[in-house]
């Protein structure tokens, strides 16, 4: 261990930071090149998921060792280029320029070299050591490509390592290359893409003007190029740093050459073309790839929708046949068992302590935890579909439909996730490029009925509607979706003034999913869900518990019930008495609390007894209104917390809550009176 990294320092570029830490690698690559697969393979569970400071982009870092030497590794966000379009590009280039990793590893897709080398053309111009991983060699072979890595390496002037990350082939060569590069055993002579002659002169002129005014750590050459490409961030940076007369000169040049972006991009593709011609033997023409065959169905305007509906149906089926029974078992055995145990252990303790532990902590958090099996099913199915490349197809077939709300296909993906749980749905809006589209999607996402609400409906609908329950349930889901589309369309007209962002999306090749990637995804998402259950939800559960206990420990005289009675007039619009109103309020910490609260308020714990009491107490109209309101009511606590986190604004969060409050009360009142009118 002692001489692990002793020779690494001299080969590195000058850095102001003291390098007594382990060498740092950064993984860069376009989306769909297998970057996560490699990162997961290298780090396993030795990884940490967080957010980039001030950004809602996931930051994953970890470590691995080669022959007992440790290396740190950061998984940079997947980006197609380094021009500031979205936070991902900015994060990637800022990290490379400011943190100066010891080695940047660019992953390219061997089956799609021409496109995926575009990012390399940009990375190679930043003066950090670079190595290229030629991933998906197996797919390239299947598609009939023959690639010669040595030729590519010679043409690029940086190390090229062939690999198939999904099968972990090429790992030894990778480890060896990393060690050699960091020990200075491999010399770099990167060959940079050139810019066309007519723009070369302009570039030199810009360089002259900005010389001496470019703040560190940005290289002047690179800044000049980004100015010509019309990069908004760099343009602002220079506007603020240049003296006014210099800025004007630069601005004039940029205006005269506003087509430079296309020339620079073409130059990069010409450079790529030369590399590819040298290193790749082209495939036989005319063979129809698997992707093309599958897409005949998956993105067909009609069959594509049928397949999507089938997948959604399958998810629900899995949820109810596997998820719900496991959930019930967990609830009875673990939560019930723990509550029983706590009751025994605390038999001597004061009543309020026992109630705090049993009803507050175990009851509140336990109920949320039992949702884990259902969440896992959703995480697994969506992780699988994502990794296989299906998600882009789902977005594609829903594009037309999403236009009704002024959104496009990409906004469908987070809404799709919402059927599992609204929390990942809100987090999932990160895939949407434009801010107005993202905020609109966040506003309407809570209208997607999550499993918790469906669980409430699944319990109450048979109680009130018997054998018609299935139709009522489907009707409620459809009504929710109709409300979602209607609200989305109205909000788009009113708040977002009909803005629409561009729908440009890669359709990745289908491939066999990687179990490790999906496994880790399920693990990380579940952990983050449990962490939330242990913090935010625990806190809220305790508040609700306190409100139901204070002032004297009798629920019927508690603040919660007083509050319920106070706002009962509002509940009356929807045909609710104070008990249904309180049940609705307690659904805020977790939607499924609604049933538990009714159980407490009616003082009957066995479910069968509760069902009987409910049918004799409430009219069908009240019951229907209650189910409608449950479906549309304000987002649960955990969802509110992530809305606040993702919008970074209490204003938007409150607007969102208010919106759903108004929608649900209006819909509830409407349904109640309509039901009375038709004589239910």
């Amino acid at each position, binding site marked *: 261990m002692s001489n692990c990294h002793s020779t690494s320092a001299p080969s590195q570029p000058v850095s102001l930071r003291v390098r007594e830490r382990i060498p740092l690698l950064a993984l860069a690559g376009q989306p769909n090149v297998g970057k996560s697969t490699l990162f997961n393979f290298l780090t396993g569970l030795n990884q940490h998921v967080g957010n980039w400071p001030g950004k809602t982009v996931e930051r994953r870092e970890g470590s691995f060792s080669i022959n007992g030497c440790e290396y740190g590794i950061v998984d940079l966000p997947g980006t*197609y*280029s380094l*021009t500031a*379009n979205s936070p991902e590009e900015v994060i990637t280039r800022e990290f490379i320029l400011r943190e100066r990793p010891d080695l940047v590893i660019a992953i390219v897709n061997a*089956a*799609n*070299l*021409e*496109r995926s080398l*575009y990012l390399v053309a940009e990375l190679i111009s930043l003066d950090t050591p670079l190595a290229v991983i030629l991933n998906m060699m197996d797919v390239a072979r299947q598609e009939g490509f023959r690639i010669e890595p040595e030729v590519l390496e010679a043409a690029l002037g940086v190390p090229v390592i062939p690999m198939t990350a999904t099968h972990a082939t090429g790992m030894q060569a990778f480890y060896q290359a990393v060690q050699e590069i960091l020990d200075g055993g491999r010399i770099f002579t990167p060959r940079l893409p050139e810019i066309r002659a007519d723009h070369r002169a302009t570039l030199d002129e810009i360089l002259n003007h900005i010389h001496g005014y470019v703040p560190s750590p940005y290289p002047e050459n690179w800044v000049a190029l980004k100015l010509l*490409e*019309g990069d*908004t961030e760099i343009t602002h940076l220079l506007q603020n740093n240049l003296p006014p007369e210099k800025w004007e000169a630069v601005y004039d040049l940029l205006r005269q050459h*506003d087509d430079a*972006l*296309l020339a620079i*991009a*073409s130059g990069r*593709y010409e450079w790529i073309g030369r590399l590819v011609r040298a290193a790749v033997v082209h495939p036989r023409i005319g063979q129809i790839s698997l*992707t*093309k065959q599958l*897409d005949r169905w998956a*993105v067909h*305007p009609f069959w594509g929708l049928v397949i999507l509906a089938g997948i959604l149906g399958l998810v629900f089926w899995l949820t109810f046949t596997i998820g719900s029974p496991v959930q019930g078992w967990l609830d009875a055995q673990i939560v019930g068992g723990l509550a029983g145990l706590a009751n025994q252990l605390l038999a001597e303790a004061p009543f309020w302590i026992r109630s705090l532990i049993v009803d507050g902590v175990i009851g509140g958090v336990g109920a949320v935890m039992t949702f884990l099996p259902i969440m896992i099913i959703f995480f697994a199915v969506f992780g699988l579909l994502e990794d296989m490349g299906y998600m*882009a197809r789902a*977005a*594609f077939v829903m*594009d*037309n439909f999403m236009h009704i709300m002024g959104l*496009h*296909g990409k906004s469908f993906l987070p809404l799709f996730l919402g059927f599992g749980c609204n929390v990942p749905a809100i987090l999932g809006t990160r895939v949407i490029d434009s801010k107005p589209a993202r905020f609109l999607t966040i506003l309407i996402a809570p209208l997607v009925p999550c499993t918790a609400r469906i669980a409430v409906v699944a319990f109450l609908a048979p109680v009130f509607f018997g054998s018609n329950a299935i139709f009522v349930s489907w009707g409620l889901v459809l009504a929710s979706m109709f409300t979602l589309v209607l609200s989305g369309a109205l909000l788009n007209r009113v708040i977002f003034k009909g803005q*629409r962002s*561009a*729908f*440009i*999306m*890669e*359709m990745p*090749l289908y491939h066999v999913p990687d179990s490790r990637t999906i496994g880790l995804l399920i693990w990380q998402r579940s952990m983050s869900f449990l962490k939330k259950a242990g913090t935010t939800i625990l806190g809220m559960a305790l508040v609700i518990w306190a409100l139901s206990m204070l002032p004297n420990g009798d629920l019927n005289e508690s603040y919660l019930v007083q509050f319920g009675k106070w706002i009962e007039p509002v509940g009356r619009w929807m045909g609710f008495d104070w008990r249904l109103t309180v049940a609705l309020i307690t659904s805020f910490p977790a939607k499924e609390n609604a049933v538990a609260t009714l159980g407490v308020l009616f003082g009957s714990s066995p479910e069968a007894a509760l069902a009987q009491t409910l049918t004799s107490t409430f009219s069908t109209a009240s019951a229907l209104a209650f189910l409608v309101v449950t479906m549309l009511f304000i987002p649960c606590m955990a969802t509110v917390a992530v809305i606040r986190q993702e919008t970074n604004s209490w204003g938007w969060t409150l607007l969102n809550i208010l919106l759903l409050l108004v929608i649900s009360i209006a819909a509830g009142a409407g349904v109640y009176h309509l039901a009375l009118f038709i004589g239910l």
Partner: protein
Amino acid sequence: MDHTRAISLTELSVDNHATILAFNVGTVEATRLVSLGFTPGAEVSMSQNYGRGPLIVTVRGTRVALGRGEAAKIVVARSAE
């Protein structure tokens, strides 16, 4: 280049090839298009176009989905078949 054959990308039918001439979009969209392989002079082939809704084109070996609105802003010259 023969500009008399210039058409919008939306008019290209399935399995036909064309060469990109220009795109009438702002810098942000142009940056996204070039990073996915769309540059003037690049060859595209239409993979799916049902006359309405989004379409799929293949450019530089990649299948890319484009909204009809975005595709309408891309000017191409149909290649002789």
